[in-house]
């Protein structure tokens, strides 16, 4: 394994190492606080390690990995998400009865899995990444085992995930049977030369089922709400962002490799999925009273929007997708961050009722949450708008008017429930939430700082996105 190989995979190495390290720290019976800070540091290191691979992009590692600028960007995004989740975790878990320490190990592993997905260039690596991610998530979702909701969520996720993995694997097998190779590059070659073969299509179909489940797009979306609700808030945030990000990256890489956009069967399927997701997602959230479920449904819709940028298969697709993910991640974290801070030992702050009059009690938190909501709704001045703009241009640029129109109309429906959240926050005069904990001023401070940074980023991306767009337009994937 050459030095360059080593360097190029440095982030992954760091993450893997970090998980081990944290285990050792746990063995050393160090306090939650130490471990939290340590893992924070480790995330930072992992993130930093991205910097020194910038000039060597794109770089092929064996046949398994392809570290190109797009992959690097996604890794950065995922590690960043891990970092943010890590920050939010302390306050959330400190009060819980379970020992919070092992949590960090799993967090690292999941991040690792997502990152592996992002750069995988081969069925094996993709499969490995996916499973590292998924298996880790089983544990994370059910982490607070005393709460029966989290157990229920855990088992549901476990059975369904395994079930869909089986589809994925079977699909892979069929594709392999047809093409005789498991590396994307090889497949690309075969697909390009040979004419369309039945097994290949069916295999791809099966794979779509598996991946569709991970992305929680209609009709594989039903688990989302329950898992979002049952899982601990930081974990929910992680599922909403990192895990989906990794899968999207892998899917995009695979599609670009085998040029799946050209097969109108696949395109038809994708379009159907996209439209269904946009409509169903927004409708399901319409009168949802539980904000975690509401965000779950809105995430379904947003993945639908993402597909609008995905389907055209033009050169701008990677840019659009990565930019949209960036905005979506930022927004989601802002929202879940607020929820985390408002959550209590006994229960999460998930009932919308409890957010009444938040505006007058905690203007800062309420403000952040409203910005997040506006961003999710895609109102100008926020990142969400720029993201949606990018998506629409990508779609319309290739003349996918139907998708664009559906996006617009469904997001009007979406408007209603995002506004509902905000309205609740300034309706009424007394709030039902206890004061936020004054007990961990340090971590509360850190979390607030992160939140304000995120909010700032949201508005900055909304008002002056050019710098970031410039970065994104530099991305390409081999």
């Amino acid at each position, binding site marked *: 394994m050459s030095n360059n190989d080593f360097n190029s995979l440095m982030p992954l190495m760091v993450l893997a190492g970090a998980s081990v390290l944290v285990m050792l720290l746990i063995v050393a019976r160090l306090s939650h606080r130490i471990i939290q800070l340590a893992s924070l540091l480790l995330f930072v290191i992992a993130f930093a390690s991205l910097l020194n691979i910038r000039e060597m992009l794109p770089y092929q590692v064996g046949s398994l990995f392809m570290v190109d600028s797009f992959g690097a960007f996604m890794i950065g995004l995922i590690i960043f998400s891990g970092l943010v989740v890590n920050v939010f975790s302390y306050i959330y878990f400190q009060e819980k009865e379970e020992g919070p320490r092992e949590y960090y190990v799993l967090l690292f592993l999941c991040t690792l899995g997502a990152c592996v997905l992002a750069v995988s260039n081969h069925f094996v690596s993709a499969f490995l990444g996916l499973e590292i991610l998924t298996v880790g998530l089983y544990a994370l979702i059910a982490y607070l085992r005393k709460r029966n909701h989290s157990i229920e969520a855990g088992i549901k996720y476990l059975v369904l995930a395994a079930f869909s993995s089986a589809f994925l694997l079977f699909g892979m097998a069929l594709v392999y049977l047809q093409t005789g190779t498991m590396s994307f590059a090889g497949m690309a070659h075969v697909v390009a030369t040979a004419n369309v073969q039945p097994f290949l299509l069916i295999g791809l*179909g099966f794979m779509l089922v598996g991946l569709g489940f991970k992305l929680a797009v209609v009709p594989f979306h*039903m688990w989302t709400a329950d898992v979002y609700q049952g899982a601990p808030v930081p974990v929910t945030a992680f599922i909403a962002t990192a895990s989906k990000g990794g899968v999207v990256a892998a899917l995009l890489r695979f599609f670009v490799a085998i040029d799946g956009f050209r097969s109108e069967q696949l395109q038809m399927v994708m379009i159907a999925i996209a439209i269904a997701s946009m409509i169903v997602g927004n409708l399901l959230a319409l*009168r949802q009273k539980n904000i975690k479920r509401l965000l779950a449904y809105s995430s379904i819709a947003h993945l639908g929007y993402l597909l609008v940028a995905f389907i055209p298969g033009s050169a701008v697709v990677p840019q659009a997708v990565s930019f949209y993910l960036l905005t979506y991640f930022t927004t989601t974290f802002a929202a879940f961050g607020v929820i985390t801070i408002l959550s209590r030992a006994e229960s999460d702050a998930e009932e919308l009722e409890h957010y009444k009059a938040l505006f007058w009690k905690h203007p800062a938190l309420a403000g952040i949450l409203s910005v997040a909501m506006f961003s999710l709704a895609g109102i100008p001045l926020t990142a969400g708008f720029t993201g949606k703009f990018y998506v629409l241009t990508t779609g319309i640029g290739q003349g996918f008017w139907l998708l664009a129109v559906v996006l617009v109309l469904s997001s009007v429906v979406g408007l209603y429930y995002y506004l509902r959240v905000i309205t609740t926050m300034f309706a009424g005069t007394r709030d039902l939430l206890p004061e936020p904990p004054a007990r961990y001023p340090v971590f509360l401070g850190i979390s607030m700082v992160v939140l304000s940074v995120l909010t700032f980023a949201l508005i900055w991306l909304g008002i002056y996105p050019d710098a970031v767009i410039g970065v994104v337009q530099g991305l390409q994937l081999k």
Partner: protein
Amino acid sequence: MLMDKYLWLIPALPLGGFFILALIGKNMSRTWVATVGAGSICLSALVTFVVGGAFLSGMPENTVYTQTLWTWFEVGEFSAKITLSLDVLSLVFVFVITFIGALIHIYSTAFMEADRDYARFFASMNLFVFSMLVLVLADNLLLMYLGWEGVGLCSYLLIGFWYEQPTNGNAARKAFTVTRIGDAAMAIGLFMVFQQAGTLVVSDIGANASVIWQPNSATVTITALLLLAGGLGKSAQLPLQTWLPDAMAGPSPVSALIHAATMVTAGVYLVARMHTIFALSETARLVVAIIGAATLLLAGLTALTQYDIKRVLAYSTISQIGYMFLALGVGAWTAAVFHFMIHAFFKALLFLAAGAIIESLHHEHNMFKMGGLKDKMPVVFWTFLAGAISLAAVPLISAGFYSKDQILWYSWSADGGSPVLWAVALAGALITATYTTRMMILTFWGESHTHIGHLPGKRMTVPLVVLAVFSVFAGFIELPHNFGHFTLFSDFLHPVLPETAMQENIPSEWLFQLLAALATLGGIFLGYYYYYQQPARIASLRQNGLLVRLYRFWFSGWAFDALYDRMLVRPFVFIARINKSDITDKLYTGISGMTGEMYKLLSRTQSGSLRWYIMGLVVGAILILGIQIML
């Protein structure tokens, strides 16, 4: 010397009065209010005499005083200037407005003495005089329209002057709305004029009318009729006459000034002003004549049946204006204007006198409750009598005779005239005489029913006397062709209004005058017979069911109100009411409701059962494979 640079003073003085009273009137003493209110009009009258005198003295043929104050607005080829222009026609109107206006204002200073809103009254009156002056002095139709709407507003304000009474408010609203219908049509008329003539300046239109329009072409007829519609509204002619009787809700001086002397004749002025257009359309002129004739008959018969003295006068006003329209219709322009002036004198007089009576009878309007005032209120009696004989057109000794006789004569002999019109007019004369006599007798003779309060003071009686003099003697400035043939007035108007075109070979004028005189005397006799000599006969007539029904029908003003109520008002209100909560909104509430339903439906799929979710997955897989195998 040219006085045209002072022209603007005539309307400006009343306007100034209005501003003073409107802004600080509340804090002024009554004497001051009276001084400002009446004084402004008197001054304006004075200026009118000066300017008018200069105008007449230094008058070669067709001179016109014009004074452009500023450009109102100018867009593309359209331009409207604020320009006053004084010619003989407008001079007549300005004279009537300012002179009679001044008298009425003086009268009002006493009449409204007791009223709480003294200042508001005079403010509105001044504003009215201003608007009316703008109306008649305007050199273009748009500025005229400004005055036109302005007088409408003032009439609204003054009819509803005692606003606590809901009925007054409604009367005011009715007056404004009904006239507004005419105004809307008139506005369209202006658009047509501009589209065809490219200007709204009256003199230009007049000069080029024959070039712009084909005689008797459809366009000119439509244009003329649209303008006419405006006139019908303001002048309370068929079919827009219903507002005027209700307008009597206003104080009597208001009725005298606005609803007898000036505003209601604006229609006459408009048609006379635009005679060049009407001259080009036979049809339009015929319509004018017919409407005039019909109105004068209908209103006269209604006046016969009223018991409220002011309503009698109101209907008689409608009927008299009907005469003027008849005259205009047959092309006797000058006769119309002449009758306008005479009518302004005696009708203002009658209203003021009636006001005095009502005042001293504690706001009693019902003639049957009056009676026997002949000796108790001599001044009022004699002046009222002067007005009455003029209204009834008693031969030779009344101004009304000369003006009306002219119209009767032209209604046959002018080229637009016809025996039928003449017959109607003649019948009208008879009826007029009858109801006038009835009114006189009921009010002044017989024994009194109501105790009399204080008698009118000098400030009220003097105007009465002045007007009485005018309404008796003013007629002599225009004598029939066959005796005297003294045509000062019509000559005076000829620079603006053309000679009346006559038919050939018509019976001698004497005959007409004889018949007219007979009709008048006959009418007087009827009234005298039924209401003085044999009042019992009335009772016997009351027995006849048919007559009673006819009486009721006439009394209701030929049921026009009921008709409009059923045809227009109620349907409108009904539609408005049922649609109060906007039907179109249902569309959107429907959409949102639908999405709500879909939400319910979908949220059922989120049953929470794992096996259901798995089913979902499987179905999804089957669908995908299905799509792929289909394609």
